[in-house]
């Protein structure tokens, strides 16, 4: 059962992710340098800092918690050839992430609707974890 805060996240961010138009992608490109449907505070240069910190190799498994529409986890998968699992609560975001996985042919990556409180994975399933502005 989602908590009150999680219901708020689903509603607030679901509303944002359901707005998808050329002008919103143009805006995202101008601000973050990305085109994933992101609306946060992680520009491309900081996604590169995350990549440096993670030091992932091809084929290693990355978990991105609270990934929205897949940024930055799917970008990291594309850059490093790691296998990413991106998770978040709003269905609209995870649907966008699945579309991106298909279009980028990230065949070993996936998008999972899940709360960060109860992630549906066995211990030691991942080599690294990333998240951007989830704890805040």
């Amino acid at each position, binding site marked *: 059962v989602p908590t009150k*805060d999680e219901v*708020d*996240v689903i509603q607030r961010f679901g*509303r*944002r992710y359901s*707005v998808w*138009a050329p*002008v*919103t992608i*143009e*805006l995202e490109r*101008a*601000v*973050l340098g990305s085109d994933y449907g992101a*609306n946060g*505070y*992680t*520009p491309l*240069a*900081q996604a590169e*800092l*995350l990549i440096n*910190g*993670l030091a992932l190799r091809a084929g290693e498994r990355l978990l991105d918690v609270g990934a929205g529409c897949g940024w930055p986890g799917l970008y990291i998968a594309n850059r490093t050839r790691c296998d990413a699992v991106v998770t978040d609560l709003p269905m609209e975001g995870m649907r966008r992430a699945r579309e991106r996985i298909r279009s980028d042919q990230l065949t070993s990556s996936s998008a999972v609707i899940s709360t960060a409180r109860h992630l549906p994975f066995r211990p030691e399933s991942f080599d*690294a*974890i*990333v*998240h*951007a*502005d*989830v*704890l*805040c």
Partner: protein
Amino acid sequence: MTFLTILTAPGLSRSHLREAVRAGPPAVLAQRDHHALLRSAGFHSIEEADVTAGYLRTVRTWFDQASAREAQLRAVMGDALFDDRQNDRHIQAAAIERGLLRRSLFVAHVA
């Protein structure tokens, strides 16, 4: 593990802390020290880098770039969501400028 997070600045008065919480994202209220949280979860070699300047630049750029596309954005997202987002960005930028909010990059490892 590598992550970015928005925090309230340390040592704020109660009134400034309330302002920071109102201006920041919902969970910015979390008061636990991230270093202690990471250590208690078994992480070590914890490094923290301040990325607040970039945070302010990004919030300001969201505001300015959205303003430049105001008519088109209002048409696709509606007036209420557009105004809500711009108001959030305006308040957040002011709080960062006043030193109430900051953003950090953490890198931590498990044994």
